[in-house]
C-alpha cells in the first residue's frame, strides 16, 4: 500500500509545475480571459508535445497509456495555474471513446486528440439542474441510416472550440451517448459569459443534427463520464485551493499589522491551519478516487462522488478564506487570488454538484 506518488508521477508533477509556472503565468491567464476564444492554440500544441493530451490514451493512438492518477496530477497543476484550457473536457471525452468506442471511432478521434489536432467536450446537462440519465430530453431519431439529434444542452464546457461533442440522447426510451461532430449541420453553439472567464461554457442547440447511426457509445458511458469528470474537476479544484493556501500563508508571513506579521495572530494562523486541513483532505479524496477508478477498485464510483462533493465544499472554503486572510488586496482584480477562487467556484456545478453526488453516495451505501 503506497499513497505517495511514484517517482515517475512525481517527475510528471514537477515538470508540469515547471512548465505552467513558465508558460501559464497569471498574466497569460488574464490575456486568455480577454480572448474571445479563451484558450491558446500554441499552448494546446505544447500540451500535445508534452504528451499531456494522450497521457491516458493507448500507445497506438500516440498516447502514453497512463492512468487516471497521472491525469489528476496534471489537472491539479492546471487548476493551480488556473489555466484556461479545454483539457479536462477533451481528455474526458477521449477516455470515454477509448473505453466504449468502436475501432473506427477510436482511430478517428484518439490520435487527433493525442496529437493536439482535436478538442472535445461532453454535454451532460440540459435545462434541468440535473445529471441523471432520467433528465435527458434530447431525442435521437432514425432518419434513413442516419440519426437526427434534437435538443438543447446547457453549460457545455468549451463547446465553442470543440471538434467533437459527446451528446447523451434518448432513442425511444433508451439512452446512449452520441459522438457529434461540432461542424455537423444543425449544431449551433452559443457561448455564455460566466463568473470564471477561464472556464468557458456554452449552450449547444441540436436542431436535427445528423450523426451516423453507429456514432454512439453505450449508456454506460454516462456514468463513466460523470465519475471521471467529477475526479478531474476535484483535481482542478484541489490545485486552485492549494494555490490559494500557499498565497495566504506567504502573505501572512510578510504582511504586518500592529507591529507583527498577521500570521502570528491566532485568527489568521488558525484559519490557515484549517485551510491546510481541507487541502490535505482534498488531496487524499482526489487521489484515492483517481486510483480507485483507475484500478477498478469496487468503491471507485463511490470515491468519485466523495471526492467531488468533499472537494467542492473544501475548495470553496479555502479559496474564500484566502481572500479573507488577504483583506482588501485579495478583493482587487490586479491581485491574482481571484483567478483561483473563481476557477474552483466554476467547477462546483460541473460534472455533478455536491448535492447530486451526495445522493449517489447514499444510493450506494444505504440501500
Amino acid at each position, binding site marked *: 500500500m503506497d499513497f505517495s506518488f511514484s517517482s515517475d508521477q512525481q517527475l510528471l508533477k514537477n515538470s508540469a509545475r515547471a512548465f505552467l509556472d513558465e508558460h501559464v503565468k497569471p498574466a497569460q491567464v488574464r490575456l486568455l480571459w480577454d480572448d474571445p476564444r479563451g484558450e491558446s492554440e500554441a499552448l494546446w500544441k505544447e500540451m500535445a508535445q508534452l504528451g499531456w493530451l494522450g497521457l491516458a490514451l493507448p500507445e497506438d493512438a500516440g498516447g502514453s497509456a497512463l492512468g487516471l492518477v497521472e491525469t489528476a496530477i496534471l489537472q491539479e497543476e492546471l487548476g493551480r495555474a488556473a489555466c484556461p484550457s479545454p483539457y479536462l473536457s477533451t481528455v474526458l471525452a477521449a477516455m470515454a471513446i477509448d473505453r466504449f468506442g468502436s475501432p473506427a471511432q477510436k482511430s478517428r478521434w484518439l490520435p487527433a486528440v493525442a496529437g493536439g489536432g482535436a478538442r472535445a467536450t461532453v454535454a451532460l*446537462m440540459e*435545462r*434541468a*439542474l*440535473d445529471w*441523471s440519465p*432520467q*433528465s435527458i430530453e434530447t431525442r435521437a431519431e432514425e432518419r434513413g441510416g442516419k440519426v437526427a439529434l434534437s435538443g438543447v444542452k*446547457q*453549460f457545455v464546457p468549451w463547446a465553442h472550440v470543440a471538434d467533437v461533442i459527446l451528446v447523451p440522447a434518448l432513442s425511444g426510451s433508451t439512452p446512449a451517448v452520441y459522438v457529434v461532430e461540432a461542424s455537423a449541420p444543425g449544431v449551433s453553439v*452559443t*457561448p*455564455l*459569459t*460566466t*463568473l*470564471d472567464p477561464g472556464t468557458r*461554457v456554452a449552450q449547444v442547440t441540436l436542431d436535427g443534427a445528423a450523426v451516423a447511426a453507429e456514432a454512439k457509445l453505450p449508456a454506460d458511458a454516462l456514468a463513466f463520464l460523470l465519475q471521471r469528470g467529477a475526479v478531474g474537476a476535484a483535481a482542478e479544484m484541489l490545485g486552485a485551493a492549494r494555490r490559494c493556501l500557499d498565497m495566504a500563508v506567504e502573505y501572512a508571513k510578510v504582511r504586518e*499589522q*500592529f*507591529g*507583527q506579521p498577521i500570521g*502570528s*495572530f491566532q*485568527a*489568521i494562523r488558525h484559519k490557515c491551519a484549517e485551510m491546510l486541513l481541507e487541502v490535505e483532505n482534498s488531496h487524499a479524496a482526489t487521489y484515492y478516487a483517481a486510483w480507485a477508478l483507475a484500478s477498478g477498485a469496487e468503491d471507485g464510483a463511490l470515491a468519485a462522488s466523495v471526492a467531488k462533493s468533499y472537494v467542492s465544499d473544501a475548495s*470553496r472554503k479555502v479559496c*474564500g478564506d484566502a*481572500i*479573507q486572510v488577504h*483583506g*482588501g*488586496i*485579495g*478583493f*482587487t*482584480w*490586479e491581485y491574482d*487570488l*481571484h483567478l483561483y*477562487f*473563481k476557477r474552483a*467556484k*466554476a467547477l*462546483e*456545478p*460541473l460534472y455533478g*454538484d*455536491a*448535492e447530486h453526488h451526495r445522493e449517489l453516495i447514499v444510493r450506494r451505501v444505504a440501500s
Partner: protein
Amino acid sequence: MDLNLSPEDRAFRDQARAWFQRNVPRAELKTLEERRAWHRTMYDAGYVGMGWPTEYGGRGATPMQQAIAADEMARANAPAPINGLGVGFIGPTIIIHGTPEQKQRYLRKILTAEEMWCQLYSEPNSGSDLASLRTRAEDRGDHFLVNGQKIWTSGGHIADWGILLARSDPGVAKHKGISCFLFDMRQPGVEVRPLKQITGSSEFNEVFMTNARAEKRDLIGRLGQGWEIAQTTLGFERGGNSMARVTRYASAFDRLVDAAKKIERGGKPLLEDPVVRAKLGNVYAEMEVQRYAALRVLSALQKGASPGAASSITKLSYSEFEKRYYELCLEILGPYGQVTDGGLEETTLDVDSSSGVRSSWAYAFLWARAGTIYSGSSEIQKNVIGERVLGLPKEIRADRVAKA
C-alpha cells in the same frame, strides 16, 4: 415591548411609500448628472440628510424615520442618493468638529450633492491597522504639504473634496500624530486611478497625492486630533441602512424563489426539492433574524442609545450572513447562478444587490466577499466585541509590548 409602528411613523411610512412609488425613476440613471438630479429630487422631498439638525439643512428625523425612508427606497428599488459618505458621515463630522466657516462653506453643498465627497483614510500598508498610516502632512505655514497614497476611496473619481487622515507629526506615538483635513480633490498633485475589484467593476479608487495642499483653514479639530475624530461614532445617520439592507436581501430571496420555480431537477421545479426547501427555509430564517436584530438596534437608537461597540455585532452579523446567503443562492442555482451575460432571463438577479448595483447573482456573490473585510474586518469586529462588549482582557500585541 411593542413592535408596532407608532401612528406618526406609520403615517410617515405611508407618505414615503407613496412618494417613492410616484417618483422613482423609470429608466436606469446613467450619467452622474442624472444621478445628481435624482439625489436633488429626494433631498427636496426631505429624504436626504434626514437626521441632520434642521439648522444645517436636515430635518432632525428620528432613527426610525430614517430607517423607514431607506426601507421604502429599497422597496421601490430606487437608486441610492449619491454623495453617501458626505451625507452619512463627513457632513456630521464637520457639524461636530468643524469651525463656523467650515460649516458655512461645505455643509449645504454636501446635502445637495453640488459638491461630491470621498474618504481618504485607508492606505495600502494600513488595512486593519489604520493608525499606522504614512501619508504625511507637513506644516508649511499657511498650508500643509501632503504626500502619500490612499486606497479604497469610494467615489474618488467623481469627488470634489475628500476627508483626509494624514500624519502631521511623525515624532509622537502613532495614534497621536495624525490630523484630519478637508482636502481639495481638484488640485494639481492629486491623481485618482480606478481600482478594479474581483467583481470586474471599479467602485473604488487609489488616490496619489504628490506635493498637494491641505489649507490651514481646512484642518478639522486640533492638530493631532485626527485619530480621535476618525474614531468618533457619528450621530445623525444611524438607523439608516438597518432595515433597508434586509429588504434588499428579501427582494433577492423573491428572485431566488422565482428561479427555483423555473429550474427543474428530477422532473420537478427546484422549489419542490426538499433539500432546496431546507436550504431556503434555513436562509430565510437567518434573514428574518437579521431583520429582528435590526429592529432591536433601531429601537435602542430611537431611545437615544449610542450604538458604540455593539455595532460591531451588527456589522459582523450581517456581513457574515450576506456571504453565506449569496453562497447559498449560487449553491441552489448551480451554473445558472454563475452566468453574468447571455443567461436565461428568469434566472438572473436583476435587483439591487447589497452594494446597490443592479447585477447578476455572480456579482452579488463576489461583492459579498468584501463585506467581511471593509470597515473593519470580521476579525477586527470580533476583537472589538471581545474587548469592549464582553470585557475580555486585551490581547498581547507587538505594538503594545513594544510600547510597554
